[in-house]
């Protein structure tokens, strides 16, 4: 039951963090030049309506004002807004008043989730073997190659890699893989590769370090002394025990992957959360902007929570 207590404690923490995130973003946008919800964005979006039906226009504007409590003091506005967000009542976007934020997100959020999880899975599948090879062939050219490549993967941001891949598969290897769009399974390959590059590097480096350390420990020596063969020793005793350390790395790394998705989506023209965010931020669509920040934040924190739970289940030494 310790785990239930731990999970509930963490969920409370997550909710407090989210409340802080929403309030901080609200306050910052409130004091941004032009002012939060100064209704001018709405007014421009609804300008045609004003001409056609002034009464309806007035009604919509009033509804808008009362929804966000624009005539209340700031702290009450914030409380009101936080409550709306936490109950998933996101309201409508300002740019596109006829479109609810919920419907936009329902379409786009799964895309980003697929990209992020696909990249995490790919980076573990590729990074772990690379790390093992580097650790076993320590200080040989294989090790240096793996280290350098993984460092390069970490250094080159996803958006630079994305344009390079578009160029490669658009010109040199034309027609092998689609370079833009979203819908078929093979259109996800290049974006996921882009997002994974950095993670592969991190996973490989950690795997290498952790495996080297594990192979030095006493129980490996005991296994050797008992006459366990090389590969079973490495795989069963070494790798299995190093993997637990790996899992802790994946959590924080996920945050960067999620940020990477919003860049990569720009370049591959994928209709994900990143595109929604970009329109929200560049057109000062505050409700949509704060909601997307809120969702990204909760995605990252839920992922971290999952990692912690998995870690506790796998590693019996961890006490929650």
């Amino acid at each position: 039951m310790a785990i239930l207590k731990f999970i509930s404690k963490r969920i409370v923490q997550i909710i407090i963090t989210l409340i802080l995130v929403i309030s901080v973003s609200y306050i910052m946008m409130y004091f941004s030049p032009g002012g939060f919800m100064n209704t001018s964005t709405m007014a421009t979006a609804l300008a045609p309506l004003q001409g056609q039906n002034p009464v309806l226009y007035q009604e919509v504007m009033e509804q808008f004002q009362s929804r966000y409590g624009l005539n209340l003091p700031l702290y009450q506005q914030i409380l009101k807004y936080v409550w709306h967000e936490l109950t998933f009542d996101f309201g409508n976007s300002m740019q596109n008043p006829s479109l609810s934020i919920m419907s936009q997100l329902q379409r786009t959020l799964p895309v980003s989730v697929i990209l992020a999880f696909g990249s995490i899975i790919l980076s573990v599948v590729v990074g772990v073997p690379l790390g093992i090879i580097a650790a076993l062939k320590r200080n040989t050219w294989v090790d240096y190659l793996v280290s350098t490549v993984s460092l390069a993967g970490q250094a080159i941001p996803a958006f630079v890699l994305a344009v390079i891949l578009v160029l490669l598969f658009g010109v040199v290897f034309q027609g092998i893989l689609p370079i833009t769009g979203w819908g078929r399974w093979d259109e996800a390959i290049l974006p996921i590769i882009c997002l994974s590059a950095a993670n592969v590097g991190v996973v490989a480096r950690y795997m290498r370090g952790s495996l080297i350390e594990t192979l030095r420990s006493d129980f490996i020596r005991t296994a050797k002394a008992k006459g366990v063969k090389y590969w079973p020793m490495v795989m069963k005793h070494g790798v299995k025990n190093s993997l637990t350390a790996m899992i802790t790395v994946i959590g924080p790394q996920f945050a960067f992957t999620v940020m990477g998705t919003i860049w990569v989506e720009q370049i591959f023209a994928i209709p994900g959360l990143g595109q929604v965010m970009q329109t929200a931020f560049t057109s000062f669509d505050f409700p949509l902007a704060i909601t997307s920040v809120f969702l990204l934040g909760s995605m990252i924190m839920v992922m971290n929570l999952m990692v912690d739970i998995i870690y506790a289940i796998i590693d019996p030494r961890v006490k929650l």
Partner: protein
Amino acid sequence: MASTVAETHSEVVLKKKKVRRSEFYQGWKRFKKHRLAVIGLVWVVIFCLAGIIGPWVAPHDYRTGDFLAINQAPSWKYIFGTDNVGHDMFSQILYSIRSALIIAIGATLVSFIIGVILGLWAGLRGGIADMIIMRAVDFMMTLPGFLFALILVIMLGRGYLSLILAIGIPGWAGYARLIRSLVLSMRDSEMVEAARALGASQAHIARRYMLPNVIGSMGVALAFGIPGDLIQIAGLSIFGMGLQPPIPSFGNMIAQAGENILGFPWLLYFPAGIFAITLLSFLFVADGLQEAFSPKGGN
């Protein structure tokens, strides 16, 4: 008698100087062993020089386009080609280096200063201040700084100073945590305890015992900070929230090149290539510094 005292004194001074110099000398020797780090350092120096002297060596003005030479491939006149309004790419890149360096260094310093102040405060004061600051650090660390940067850009605008602040302010948490942990580990170390027992003043302990041991880790943290900030600047531009387009920046160029990449791929080669090489170089240098100067070193 007097002369012998003076002699021994000067000898001690000489010895001290030698020891002090050799600390850095040995670090430099260790650094030189990493070939990639040295290559990276050379590139970083070239990059910084290009940023400093850029406006004087740029062959064309980055603002005025040559409308008779739109989307040209690299030639002798335009060695990196021209973009879709005839801007010389080479000059644009020189100016981008300048803007990227100004913002990256400024932002890293902002994060560093906030981090040092809060980290020292938390480490030396302890108690409730420590608890509040560390809670704030946890809060900042759970979410990527880029999210906060986006929101700050909305609030502050898209000029140089606002971008420095937007990228710098959210980045303090890592530095604060590092400095707090260094202070804590140092405060209770035997070395400091011994110095205190000998009657050394607080300032003397800080200067002679804490600073030399901390400076390596701080330098490494700063070296890792700059490429991270470079990525964030470019990321903001990709998002359409970076420097206002007439001012050239790597992110803008990469985003623009991405739009018509199949027709005019050279618009991508140079900005993306130089940007990637620069990031790699900074990272190699940081890696080399870590292994040469940080007491714990890498794996």
